[in-house]
């Protein structure tokens, strides 16, 4: 079929992946592939459902950037802390959060981890230690730094991983978090996904730097820039950074060069950028590049791919059903969990005392 052909041969030779994935068994290579593809397919399906008006709000597509967070999230222990940003679907799928929670989140339904009160499309799950991301840019960076501090203080072996975009690196909180982590050599890996744009802002208006790894030069820990669409390089770099963090050697900042294929959100026509630019980056699609690598290494063949696709298809189908059948939250369901303790004077409020309230 045409699609499969495309995934195998559509990119120029120079984008062919080479080298070894350190310490990665064939089995895990394949599982990683499945998570990547699942992330892609899930995202594509959500976009379609959004255009069909099946859920409200908007949708932030991550297509094109999957390798940046799936690859590192996949390597984490369940108790490791993940601080995703607004586009980090792969932080959840990479770590193995079942898709049904993610669809329920997108649909803002009762069965999302927050019961539909928090923003759609902000994927998280408390049991998987993927934090509820902050819409407010780079707040998660500070929170993840705090988690890394907590692990260190409590003498736990876990690490934290935080994600942000190129645009987010201009925010004051980016600086305060990195600086603190540098001073205290916290067990954390910072991932900056440089997709060249922050909404409509070109990266040249975010920073005078060409390579964002130099942000780390200000904090006294290593920074490195890699091709975030190269699963092999991403694997090896993140693996090393995680080992550094776990060994007590401190933080690493990794700039991953990547690209979002679609608009900032799905209501953004993204006409601030050229078709050529988009085409150039689609050629560097991380998934077919990795697929070919797996085929070359005899880890994947047509049969296996069919199986993988079927499993993904089934999970997505089920997850969409789950969300669509999950009730919309009761109108006043948000009136809980403001405080953990009870206070005599606290009231949610009553707009029409004595009368019928809505």
């Amino acid at each position, binding site marked *: 079929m045409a699609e499969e052909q495309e995934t195998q041969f559509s990119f120029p030779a120079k984008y062919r992946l080479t080298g070894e994935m350190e310490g990665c068994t064939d089995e895990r290579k394949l599982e990683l592939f499945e998570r990547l593809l699942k992330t892609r397919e899930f995202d594509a399906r959500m976009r379609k459902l959004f255009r069909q008006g099946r859920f409200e709000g908007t949708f932030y597509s991550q297509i094109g950037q999957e390798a940046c967070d799936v690859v590192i999230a996949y390597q984490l222990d369940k108790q490791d802390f993940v601080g995703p940003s607004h586009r980090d679907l792969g932080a959840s799928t990479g770590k193995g959060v079942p898709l049904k929670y993610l669809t329920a989140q997108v649909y803002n339904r009762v069965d999302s981890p927050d019961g539909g*009160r928090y923003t759609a499309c902000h994927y998280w799950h408390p049991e998987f230690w993927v934090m509820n991301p902050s819409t407010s840019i780079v707040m998660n960076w500070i929170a993840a730094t705090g988690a890394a501090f907590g692990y260190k203080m409590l003498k736990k072996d876990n690490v934290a991983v935080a994600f942000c975009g190129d645009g987010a690196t201009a925010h004051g909180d980016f600086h305060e978090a990195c600086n603190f982590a540098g001073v205290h050599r916290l067990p954390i890996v910072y991932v900056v996904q440089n997709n060249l744009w922050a909404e409509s*802002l070109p990266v040249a208006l975010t920073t005078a730097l060409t390579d964002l790894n130099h942000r780390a030069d200000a904090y006294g820990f290593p920074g490195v820039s890699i091709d975030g669409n190269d699963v092999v390089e991403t694997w090896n770099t993140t693996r090393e950074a995680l080992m550094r963090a776990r060994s007590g050697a401190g933080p690493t900042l990794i700039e991953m060069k990547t690209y979002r294929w679609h608009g900032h959100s799905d209501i953004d026509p993204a006409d601030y950028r050229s078709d050529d630019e988009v085409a150039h980056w689609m050629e560097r699609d991380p998934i077919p590049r990795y697929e070919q690598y797996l085929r070359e290494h005899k880890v994947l063949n047509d049969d296996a791919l069919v199986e993988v696709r079927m499993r993904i298809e089934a999970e997505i189908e089920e997850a969409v059903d789950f969300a669509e059948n999950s009730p919309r*939250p009761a109108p006043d369901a948000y009136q809980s969990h403001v405080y953990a303790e009870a206070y005599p004077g606290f009231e949610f409020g009553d707009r029409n005392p004595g009368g019928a309230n809505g």
Partner: protein
Amino acid sequence: MAEITYIDAINRTLHEEMTRDETTFLIGEDTGIYGGVFKATRGLLEEFGPDRIVDSPISESLIAGMTVGAAMVGCRPLPEIQFADFISPAFDQIVQQVARYYWRTRGAFEMPITLRCPYGGGVGGGVFHSQSNEAWFMNTPGLVMVAPGSVRDAAGLLRSAIRSQDPVLYWEHKKLYRSLKDDLPDGDETLTPIGKAEVARTGSHVTAISFGYTYQLCLEAADQLAEDGIEVEVIDLKTLLPLDKSTVIESIAKTGKAVIVHEAPKVGGIGGEIAAILAEECFWELDAPITRVAGYNTSFPAARTMEEHYMPSTAQIAAALKTAVET
């Protein structure tokens, strides 16, 4: 003379005032190339170029704070915060520097800064795209806050704010952007006075005090109640800081009853300040408890079912007004 929307009134006024005064510049996120996430700044980059229409990095503290130095050397800055929800990183610069600098320098440097701030719920955005944060700034002498509730004032208050020598937070309600349309004559240069509330509708039974989107709901509620013979006086505050006490007090002297309406959570909202003024300065004129119809004391929820529940409604306002009249 053409009908234009609230957001187009903003856009047009920005064009006009930036043409009028070459020391103005606009800085914000996605305000240039994109023309603003709501298109409020559409066409400005093309007209005024990148020196005066600055697409800022995601640095709200810088956006708000850099205006102080720029104003000192002779500019008239027009910063924009993309969503009111993201004004909190700029809070420090606004309350400590922008608002106090004129006082601190005993008048040596005026701060003719207008910071635009799209706020409010009802647009399906969840907790970080729906907040009404004006109350955070009420305890900040030196700061001016205006909040247009009509197309005329969207233009008139913005024009006045830009020409003012004081720092003004201009609260524009996202739900009014395209839902509100009105005539705005070409070339109109109306300056809505800052610091003056307006009795937008007269009535003798009860006073509804509000601003922005909920002011429009108050007008609706007043229409509904008129059918039952209840005459509601509706006050559009327009300026939130410093509040126009006398217009409100005069109205209460007439009606004896006050219902204050806003969208932010009730506790700590600006309704408290208004109620306190009335309870202090026209206590003897009041003949019913002062009621506040406001947002619930929680964060703003995302799912549509909950969002609808969260927003004050015309029916609830009407019910509160009726209860006050029947007291």
